[in-house]
């Protein structure tokens, strides 16, 4: 109980001190609002611009969650393909890594051109969201592929021998042994990917600069920058960080729930 109090009080004290110092600095050095707005001005902006910022946030969140979902499905399937065939893994893994290490910001313009051409060819409207989705997916899928592949390949060799002894097919072994073994690895990948999908969605939007009726938080940040509405910029940043934290906590809670019954890191409490 005492420990819990410290764990909550500690960060709160630091936060309050930080905001106080910030306010003091603004007042002492007579900061101009577009350089550093006061905490109060940021709070006001949150209140006034909040509704429209939340609308943008929901767009960013939509992209993030869609990217995360497709990263889970496609990343999981890629990992399963890798675990079923060593040849496939050896042949394709380097390209997965290349896709991962190439800076997203550098790929994004290319993606935007392609998506634009593709949607024009399809005769439909331009869908900037698709480009953003692909951007976010590219950053999000790697941890899932890498972790899940490692998990699928780390089944106990003796259990694998036992499965062979009882004549288990490759699919039966995958289903009864490799997939349960990989579950904690996979969930770690998902937790990392949740944060990365948000980063990808924001970074993609910086490059794509959606415009139009539907805009995400990244575009609002750029807009605030051009118009030197620094307080609004701060408000958008705060919303983004909070979103990241909420995504992390939600995924963390979800994986604890799933693993509660058997995995030691979950059973043992705090191990990370």
């Amino acid at each position, binding site marked *: 109980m005492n420990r819990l109090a410290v764990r909550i009080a500690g960060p709160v004290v630091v936060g309050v001190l930080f905001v106080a110092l910030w306010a003091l600095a603004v007042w002492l050095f007579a900061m101009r609002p577009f350089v550093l707005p006061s905490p109060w001005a940021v709070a006001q902006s949150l209140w006034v611009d909040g509704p429209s910022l939340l609308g943008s946030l929901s767009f960013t969140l939509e992209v993030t969650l869609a990217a995360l979902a497709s990263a889970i499905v496609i990343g999981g399937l890629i990992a399963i393909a890798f675990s079923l065939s060593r040849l496939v893994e050896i042949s394709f893994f380097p390209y997965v890594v290349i896709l991962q290490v190439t800076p997203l910001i550098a790929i994004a313009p290319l993606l935007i051109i392609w998506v634009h051409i593709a949607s024009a060819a399809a005769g439909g409207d331009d869908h900037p969201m698709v480009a953003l989705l692909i951007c976010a997916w590219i950053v999000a899928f790697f941890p899932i592929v890498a972790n899940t592949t490692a998990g699928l390949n780390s089944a*106990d060799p003796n259990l694998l021998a*036992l499965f062979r*002894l*009882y*004549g288990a097919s490759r699919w039966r072994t995958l289903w*009864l042994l490799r997939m*349960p073994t990989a579950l904690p690895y996979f969930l770690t990948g998902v937790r990392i990917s949740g944060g990365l999908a948000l980063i990808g969605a924001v970074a993609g939007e910086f490059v794509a600069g959606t415009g139009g009726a539907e805009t995400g938080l990244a575009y609002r940040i750029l807009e605030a920058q051009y118009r030197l509405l620094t307080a609004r910029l701060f408000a958008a940043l705060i919303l983004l960080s909070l979103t990241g934290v909420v995504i992390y906590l939600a995924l963390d809670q979800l994986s604890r729930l799933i693993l509660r019954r*058997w995995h030691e890191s979950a059973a043992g409490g705090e191990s990370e």
Partner: protein
Amino acid sequence: MLSAPAVSGGCSAETAPILELRGVAKHFANGVEALAGIDLTVKRGEFLSLLGPSGCGKSTLLRIVAGLTPPSRGTCHLTLEGQGRARVAAGRIGFVFQDPTLMPWSTVTNNVLLPFRIARRLGVAERERAASAIRAVGLAGFEHAYPRELSGGMRMRVSIARALVTDPDLLLLDEPFAALDEITRLALNDDLLQLWEERRPTILFVTHSVFESVYLSTRIAVMTARPGRISADIAVGLAHPRQRATRSSPEYVALCDSVSAELGKAMGGGS
């Protein structure tokens, strides 16, 4: 209770060999020669201990018998019910490793049911057999426990129950009690003996303990250090049922002495 494996033909079938190894050798890609020219015939219902120093290829031999590793030379012939894949899927061979090798995400019951789950046979009969195997190893009441909630000895019991659940003709045990404390090991020795006396499966038991091999088996094959060869084949004539008192009988002590001497020769003079 499960019935003993159905053997037609009475006494003659009882004594027919279940396993015949002829000139079995094994060397690995890294040049290590694990086994050199193993000849061994095991009769149905025997409890054979493979006794030898660490690294003499005992475990490799067991894996060859189980079909998990092919021999480099020689033949390994098993006479079991059925043939080929069907024989394997039916679980005619049970295997117990040095570690319990359980699935941590499954309950005791589900771990024991594994051979049936693999074969997609999960009927009432299979569940009853699992329950009976769990009772036979003394784990009644722990059906829904997870492996991490059990002690090391209890986990090993689950592992044995899993090997027994298909009522195998041949039970392969690879130093199953080596990692356990002395008290637990003695208790499990007695339980294993009792299971063997009730069901009479053929057992190949790998160990490096002289006392364990003499107490448990009907026959001991002593193996030399790498490359493994069988240097002595000793019949253990101690009467059944054996109990703790057997351990203090003069025959037991004399057998331990002679087996120790053979083991000493195998380790020292061999190569």
